[in-house]
């Protein structure tokens, strides 16, 4: 079994990767095997920074040949170094899994010697875990850009999900802060995985990356606007059928480089980007609609509310008549509430009181809807904006930090932040 010191070093080095989801796969257990995957994902604990622990997130090695300026594991950084063997990782995963500490393994690695050598070690571990340890729990494997396509293809047969990190939102930032990486080397394997995932849609028993692929980019280490970040996310969803783009607010780990900020981008910016990402994926918005004129997301309102304020000509909408696609564009009405409204209005003409009974959050929605032809919002546009900003301010700390119980169910099931 791995010793506690190395475990600590390898965990500490892996924790800045924000992807934590264990959803999307319904891999089943087999006779004599250990584990299965839950399609909605399961959170097993939460650390004091509020993040979920779902997978054993660990590096095989943090001895990196690269010197990416934003990364804690860069070659020039003076941090304790360690590596683990495939058997140590497998043993630890199985032991933690049996005790229900984790949902599976999230395995990544610094580039030790070369991308091929690193990818081989990762692949060896995953194959061992599946075959020798008969492990059928969730595996998220980080791909190493520049590794041989055959290694990547093979990894896709054993992992539930793979990801190659975009790292920074533009090629110029990549050149500036991670000169050993380049856009082509990152995008190429993403395209390869995407074609693998799509090709495997045809056979009935799909085994290739059942939970698809994701990526992550660091926000706030370089100067890109929210608009650039969201447009890139949108094109990644379109081009590579990604399940998810993660945003990691830059945590200062390098104070020697003049190009890097000394302060974190902050939780609010990250939170707004996730809200916008949600609108892209599930609410039918495009990046162009979400982003304001200055290219950034508004801080004072959530992105849907900001959009609605810019498009008051489309409101109010009548809840007894509007289609679901319109209802979900109303600030305060989410997917679940929109479907509840659609169901409920089949049996009765909905009033404002009915909506409250149905637990539709009316604080924001009331300014954008009518119920049975009656409007209960603020008619003065200026006053309405102030009210919305006040609600947002009072809820902000709560929303960032404390989702209500039912929202947690949704969040857990869908991965929504």
């Amino acid at each position: 079994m791995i010793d506690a010191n190395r475990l600590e070093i390898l965990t500490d080095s892996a924790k800045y990767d924000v992807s934590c989801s264990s959803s999307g796969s319904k891999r089943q257990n087999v006779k004599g095997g250990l584990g299965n995957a839950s399609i909605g994902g399961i959170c097993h604990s939460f650390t004091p920074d509020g993040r979920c622990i779902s997978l054993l997130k660990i590096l095989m090695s943090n001895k990196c040949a690269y010197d990416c300026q934003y990364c804690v594991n860069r070659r020039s950084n003076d941090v304790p170094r360690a590596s683990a063997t495939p058997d140590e990782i497998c043993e630890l995963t199985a032991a933690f899994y049996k005790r229900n500490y984790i949902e599976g393994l999230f395995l990544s690695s610094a580039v030790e010697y070369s991308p091929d050598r690193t990818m081989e070690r990762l692949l060896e571990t995953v194959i061992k875990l599946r075959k020798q340890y008969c492990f059928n729990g969730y595996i998220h494997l980080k791909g190493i850009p520049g590794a041989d396509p055959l290694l990547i293809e093979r990894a896709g047969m054993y992992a539930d999900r793979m990801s190659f990190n975009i790292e920074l939102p533009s090629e110029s930032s990549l050149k500036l802060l991670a000169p050993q990486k380049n856009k082509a080397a990152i995008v190429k394997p993403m395209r390869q995985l995407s074609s693998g995932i799509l090709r495997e849609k045809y056979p009935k028993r799909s085994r290739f990356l059942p939970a698809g692929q994701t990526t992550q980019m660091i926000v706030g280490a370089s100067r890109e606007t929210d608009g650039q970040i969201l447009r890139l996310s949108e094109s990644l969803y379109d081009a590579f059928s990604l399940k998810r783009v993660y945003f990691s607010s830059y945590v200062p780990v390098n104070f020697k480089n003049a190009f890097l900020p000394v302060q974190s981008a902050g939780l609010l910016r990250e939170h707004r980007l996730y809200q916008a990402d949600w609108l892209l994926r599930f609410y039918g918005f495009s990046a162009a609609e979400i982003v304001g004129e200055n290219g950034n997301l508004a801080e004072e309102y959530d992105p849907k509310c900001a959009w609605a304020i810019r498009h008051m000509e489309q409101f109010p909408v009548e809840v007894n008549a509007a289609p679901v696609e319109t209802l979900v564009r109303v600030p305060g009405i989410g997917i679940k509430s929109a479907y509840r409204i659609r169901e409920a209005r089949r049996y009765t003409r909905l009033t404002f009181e009915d909506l409250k009974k149905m637990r539709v959050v009316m604080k924001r929605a009331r300014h954008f809807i009518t119920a049975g032809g009656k409007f209960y919002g603020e008619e003065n546009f200026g006053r309405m904006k102030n009210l919305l900003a006040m609600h947002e301010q009072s809820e902000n700390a709560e929303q960032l930090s404390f989702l209500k119980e039912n929202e947690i169910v949704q969040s857990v099931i869908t991965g929504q932040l």
Partner: protein
Amino acid sequence: MKTYLCEDSVNGLFSAVFRAYAEKNTAARISCLLYEQTAFDSEFIDVKTDADHADRVKAAVARYGGNKALREIGRAMRSCEAEKADVIFAYIKRMLAEKRDISRSFAYAEVMPFVTLSERVQLEVHRFTGFLRFEEQNGLLYARFTPDNDIADLLLGHFSRRLGELPFLIHDARRGKFAAWDGKRAACFFADDPSIRPDAAEKELIGLWKRYFAAADVKSRPHPKQQDGYLPRRYRKNMSEFQ
């Protein structure tokens, strides 16, 4: 106001519903609390569980709401809420009056309180699929927990599929209830606290997990309110990383 006092089970509740209809007292309340505190002019009627009566109510519910309604009622009855029997009674009354499935009629006053009861139980089941902590002792995985709702046996399916041939014991310490799996069969029973404590090897593994948990935290971004929101403090007393 009359209050029918029944056993805390689906059959107990259905027997009370039968009695309320038989006595044309559908405006009455139903409670499954041993000590019910109500207005001073309340009249209490003890209802003994009667399988035939319960079956007749069950058939009526199934006729309009299908098996889904029976499942939802079964789940709602596992709730720890004091008002659960009354909430379910109101739902059944509305369903029988409308003679149809009302589960999607969210604007009805009787529906959302019932849906919430059931959802809260479901939420707790989901939470404990993640928050339950097993300790291995001589090949047996033992988990002690204190859920709000009566959910121990609802976790059996999830963990038996997951752990396959590994035997485990889930112990609801609040109710003295055990859900067991021997690798082939499941069982549910009540017993005294077995006082199982981790041995040295297990303590070492718990130590590793605690080191992992501490190292995974980004200390420069503390967010305890978010942690509290997702992982309520009352659940932490049986989670090894918080000991």
